[in-house]
C-alpha cells in the first residue's frame, strides 16, 4: 500500500474513532456518577448540531456553537431533574428504559421542530472542497478541527477529574456513593452536573462534526450505538480506555474496507467486539474486580 493511501485510511479511521470516543466518554461520565448508561447521549450530539445550525441565522458561528452547547447543557440538566433526580433507588433496567424513552421523545420532538431534512453547518475554514496537504495526502481542515476539539476535550476532562475539587467530588460519587454522601458531597447535584457535562461535550462534538457528517433529527441513534460499543469495548467508566477503544474501532473500520465489502463492515466490526468480550468480559481495559462491585 502506498504511504499516502495508508494515511488516507488512517485519517478516516481517526476521524470515526475520535467521534465514537467522545460519545463513549459522554456515556462514561454519567455512568461513573450514577451507574447507569444514558441512552439519550446520542441525542445531545444531534441537538448540538441542530441548535447551532438554527442559531447561526441570528448570530456568528462561534457564538452559535457556544449558545447551542449552553442550551443543550440546560436540556441535559432538565432531563435529569424532571425524569431522574427524584427516583429513589432505581433499578438499572428501569433507568435504561427511561433513557431509551427520553431518547425517542427528543428525536421525535426534533423531527417535528426541524423536519426530516438534512442540515449542515458551513465549514469553519474554507469550503466543502478545501483541503490541506499533510505528508502527501489531502485532508479537510474540518477533520483536523474535529480531531483537535475532541482531543482538547479529553485533555480537559482528565485534568478536570484529577485536579479540580468538583471533579474529585464526582469521582468520589463514582467510587462509593454512600461514602461520598457521608463526606458531605451532594450526590444528587453531582449527578445533575454529570448530565450537564456530558450534554455539553456531546453538543460541542455534534456542532464541530456537523459540516462533515451533517445533522438530521435521527443521527443520534447510530452514534449512540457506536459510542456504547466503544464504551463497552474499552471497559465502562474508563475514559482514556474509551479513546483507545474508539480509535481502535474507527481504524479497523477504515482499513476493513480494503479487503471486505463495505456492506459487511459493521457486521465484522461488531463480530470482533463480541470475540473480544468473550475473551475479556469486561472490555479491553476494564478490570473484572471493579466490574464485580457494580450492580449492573
Amino acid at each position, binding site marked *: 500500500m502506498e504511504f499516502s493511501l495508508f494515511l488516507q485510511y488512517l485519517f478516516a479511521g481517526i476521524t470515526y474513532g475520535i467521534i465514537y470516543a467522545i460519545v463513549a466518554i459522554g456515556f462514561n461520565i454519567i455512568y461513573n456518577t450514577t451507574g447507569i448508561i444514558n441512552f439519550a447521549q446520542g441525542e445531545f450530539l444531534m441537538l448540538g448540531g441542530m441548535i447551532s445550525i438554527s442559531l447561526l441565522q441570528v448570530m456568528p458561528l462561534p457564538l452559535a456553537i457556544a449558545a447551542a452547547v449552553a442550551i443543550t447543557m440546560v436540556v441535559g440538566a432538565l432531563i435529569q431533574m424532571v425524569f431522574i433526580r427524584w427516583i429513589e433507588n432505581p433499578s438499572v*433496567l428501569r433507568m435504561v428504559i427511561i433513557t431509551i424513552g*427520553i431518547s425517542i421523545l427528543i428525536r421525535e420532538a426534533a423531527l417535528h421542530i426541524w423536519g426530516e431534512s438534512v442540515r449542515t453547518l458551513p465549514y469553519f475554514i474554507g469550503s466543502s472542497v478545501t483541503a490541506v496537504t499533510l505528508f502527501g495526502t489531502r485532508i479537510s481542515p474540518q477533520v483536523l478541527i474535529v480531531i483537535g476539539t475532541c482531543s482538547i476535550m479529553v485533555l480537559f476532562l482528565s485534568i478536570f477529574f484529577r485536579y479540580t475539587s468538583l471533579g474529585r467530588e464526582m469521582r468520589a460519587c463514582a467510587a462509593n456513593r454512600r461514602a461520598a454522601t457521608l463526606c458531605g458531597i451532594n450526590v444528587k447535584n453531582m449527578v445533575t452536573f454529570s448530565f450537564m457535562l456530558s450534554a455539553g461535550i456531546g453538543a460541542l462534538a455534534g456542532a464541530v462534526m456537523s459540516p462533515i457528517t451533517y445533522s438530521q433529527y435521527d443521527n443520534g441513534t447510530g452514534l449512540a450505538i457506536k459510542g456504547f460499543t466503544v464504551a463497552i469495548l474499552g471497559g465502562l467508566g474508563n475514559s482514556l480506555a474509551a479513546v483507545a477503544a474508539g480509535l481502535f474501532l474507527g481504524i479497523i473500520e477504515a482499513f476493513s474496507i480494503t479487503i471486505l*465489502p463495505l456492506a459487511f463492515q*459493521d457486521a465484522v466490526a461488531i463480530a470482533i467486539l463480541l470475540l473480544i468480550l468473550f475473551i475479556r468480559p469486561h*472490555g479491553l481495559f476494564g478490570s473484572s474486580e471493579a466490574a464485580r462491585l457494580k450492580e449492573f
Partner: protein
Amino acid sequence: MGLRRRYLPLAGLLAAVIGVQLAASATNSTFYLTQLTMAAYYCLVIIGLCLLMGYAGQISLGHAGFFAIGGYLSAALTSHNFTAVSDTLLMRTLDRAGLLLHHQSLYGDSLLSLQPWLAFFIAIGVAVLIAFVLGIPVLKLKGHYLAMATLGFGIIIYRIVLAAEFFGEADGISEVPPFQLMPGLAVSGDFSARVQNYYIAWALLLFGLLLLLNLINSRMGRALRAIHGSEEAAEAIGINTARAKLYTFVISAAFAAVAGSLLTHFNGGIGPSEASVMKSVRYVAIVAVGGMANLWGAMAMGIILNFMSLRGMFGSYDDAVFGGVLLLIMLFAPQGILSLRLKNILWAKRPMTGK
C-alpha cells in the same frame, strides 16, 4: 400456585379470544382480526423474552435477530427458486420425499422451493443452534456487557440480511407462499383465511403461555427465580446456573423464531425492518412496561401497543407515543402497567410476583 389458578386465566383468555372473533364476525368487522393476528405473533416473541428477562434476569437487546432468523430463513427457502440445482442428488432426494414445493410466481413462472414445513424446521433449528452456541459465552457476561453483546448479535443479523442478496437486501423477500399446516389449514394472508389464521396465531400464543406458565412453576422456574435473586446463592445451593440460563435463552430464541416464521407466511413477506435494533428495543420495552416478571402484563401490553401501532392509530406520532408510554409507565408504575391499574386501585395489598 394451584392448578386451577394457573389454568383459569388461560380459559378466560381462550373465551375472550373466541368472543372477540364472534363479535367481529357478527358485526361484519373481521378486518380487526388481521392486526390481532399480527399482534399475537409479536406477543409470542414478547412472552419468550419475558421469561428470559423477568424470570432468568438476563436482558437481550437482540431478539429481533432471532425473529429475523426464523422469518428470513422460512421466506428464503420457500420462495427462492432452486430449479437451477434441481438435478443434484440432494434436491432429487428431497423431491422424492415430498419435501419440495412446486409452485408458481405471481406471473406464472414455475418455481421450485422447499416445503414450508421443512423450511420451518430448518429455520427454527438454525435459530436454536445459534442461540445455543451464542448463549454459552454471552450469558457469562453481566449487565451492560450482556446488553451490548446481545445488541451486537442483533446488529450482525440486521447487517447480514441487509447486505446479502439471498435475503433480498433492502427490499427483503416478497411473495412467500402460504404454509399448509394440514389439509384445510394454512398460514396465509388471504382474506378468506383470516378467521382460521386468527385462531392459529392465538392458539399458538395460548400454547406458548401454557408452556411458560408450567415452566415457571416447575423446578426449572424456581431455579430461575433463585438465579434472578442472587446468582452466587443459587450456585451455592446446587443450581447449575449456566445451564438454566442457557435453556431459557434457547427457549426464548425459539419462541421468537417460530413467531418470525409464521408471521412471515401470514404477511407473505419480510423486510429488514423486522431485524432492526429499534424492533429489539421495542420488545424489551414492552416486557418492561408489562412488569418484567409478569407474563400477563407483558402480553397485555404487547397486544395493545402492537395492535394500535399496526392499525396506524397514531399516524406520524407512532414512535413518539411509544416513547411517551414507556417513560410514563417506568416513571410512575415501575412494576408494570398491571400494577398501576390493578394493584394500586382495585386489589391493594397483594404482593406482586414481579420484581
